[in-house]
């Protein structure tokens, strides 16, 4: 369970950083545009598409290190 919790914490911080760290560090300007969009609009359009992939990786990792958590009523595994 410890590995699953660490994996989860890391994922939360990664998603948080992508949104607030990366956006303010590297996308907080008006031009040049990226793919035809202002940088901040581009970034906040991209991250919601990337986030499911990051969470899917966490899901895959969680199943590997923590399989008993998947089962319904798993307190009695």
């Amino acid at each position, binding site marked *: 369970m410890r590995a699953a919790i660490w994996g*989860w914490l890391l994922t939360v911080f990664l998603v948080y950083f992508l949104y*607030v760290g990366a956006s303010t560090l590297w996308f907080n300007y008006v031009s040049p545009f990226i793919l035809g969009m202002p940088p901040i609009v581009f970034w906040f359009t991209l991250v919601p598409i990337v*986030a499911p992939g990051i969470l*899917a990786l966490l899901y895959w990792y969680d199943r590997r290190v923590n399989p008993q958590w*998947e089962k319904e009523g798993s307190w009695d595994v």
Partner: protein
Amino acid sequence: MSESFVVLMAAFLAVAAITVGGIVYGASQSRDLEGWLIHSRLMGPILVWFLLGTEIYTAFTFQGLAGFAYANGSAVFYNVALNDVAYAIGFLVLPAIWLIGKRFGYVTQADFLAGRYRSRNLGIFVALTSALIMIAYIDLNIEGLGAVVQVIGKGAFNQTGADLVGFLVLALAVLLGGIRGNAWQAVVKDILMFIAVVVIFFTIPLHYFGSFGNFYHNLATHASQYLVLPGKAKKLGPLWLITTVALTAMGQWMWPQWFGVAYTAKSPKTLKLEAIFMPFYQLVKVMMITVGFAAVLIFAGTKVNGNNVVMLLALRTFPEWFLILFTIAAVFAAIVPAGPIIMTSASLLAKNVYAALVPNTSERTVYRLTKWLVFPLTLLAFGLAAAAPALIVVVLLVAYDFISQLFPAVVIGGLFWRRATKEGATAGILVGWVVSGALLLTKHDPFLGVNAGLWGLLANVLVFVAVSLATPAVDRGYLEDFLRTAFPQPKAMAVAAEQQVEG
């Protein structure tokens, strides 16, 4: 017959139709408490996706975000980040809460806290206060409905009059619609809202600017301050974004209606899959924010109430037949999610406050009381909307400052920190509210660039830890069992841990 009258009547008739549909659907459903509060823990991933989508993406998304983008620029992106970080937090927290809820029969957040801290009084305190904080959520949906009535009514109503119509429509829909909001209504609302959002997102830039490229070029040339932080709103800079996202992401699952969604799922796996797929919904928010940016250019030189910009653009742009569909979507976006929110608030007061204080209260009495509370709660929300009209997003941001103060008690103490006590949880929450409230009332939000609610949360955590360490801990054996339920271990490890506790 005027166009305004036709559009409003068509929208309200559609609301009536879907309400009747809800009654017919509801008649075939289970009538016990677990049935209507948490759908008997039977929802699969698709229905939970729609249910969460309906309760999270409300009039706030449909009208509020565009209004905040129009008034404050890029600071609005905090809201795209907030939900996604919250989904990542929910990946682990919600399944743990589900396992505990199923094992101990909990159906509300107050049940969970009363169980974890072995304190009926803490359950009553949290139920009462969070039900009151939820009034802000009802308020913003009334303001959303008010904006629809005001704009489509073309000046026939002032803001309070429009909010009054919104209040009456909402209260009647929830009262007549019965005691349950159901996921099938959510599906209809979400489909309508998707259509309306996609159409307005593509139509506005193409109709007024010829292309998206031209629109963004105009925005960068004539309103560049809307595209950076801090920009249009000087007080809302990068530090505000960083701290506001942290606070609100921790606060999202503290809303009782969303905490309750954890109990509706049929398995922990359902909740993990939600965490993966819910971020796609955020694209709807980006679309509405884009519409808000377009409004900056379209309404340049005109003073417009931010809450009204989406409906004003729809009125100005769409033919009557589509305006009807758009108005129906806007009304549903407020009413369908507000129903379960009002019901959750009412049921917290009936079940976790009244029934906890009056022994031997029957389930039938709880039902009746819940229904009776719908009207006064909605009236209180209308009173708030009339007394303190504000941008929809601002109402929600203030509410988050308060609801987020439950995070240490629910997540840190509730799932991880064994030494947390009921005294620590109560003191922390109270201090968090006092600090946040003082900063808000003295107009110090943000304070030193940091969201006022986060200052409250820092004070909350300090007091929570200090008071917990100074007061007697919850019985160790009980707590081991409680927390082992949340994080089950493989059988061999579980047996060893049990022996250790017994030893």
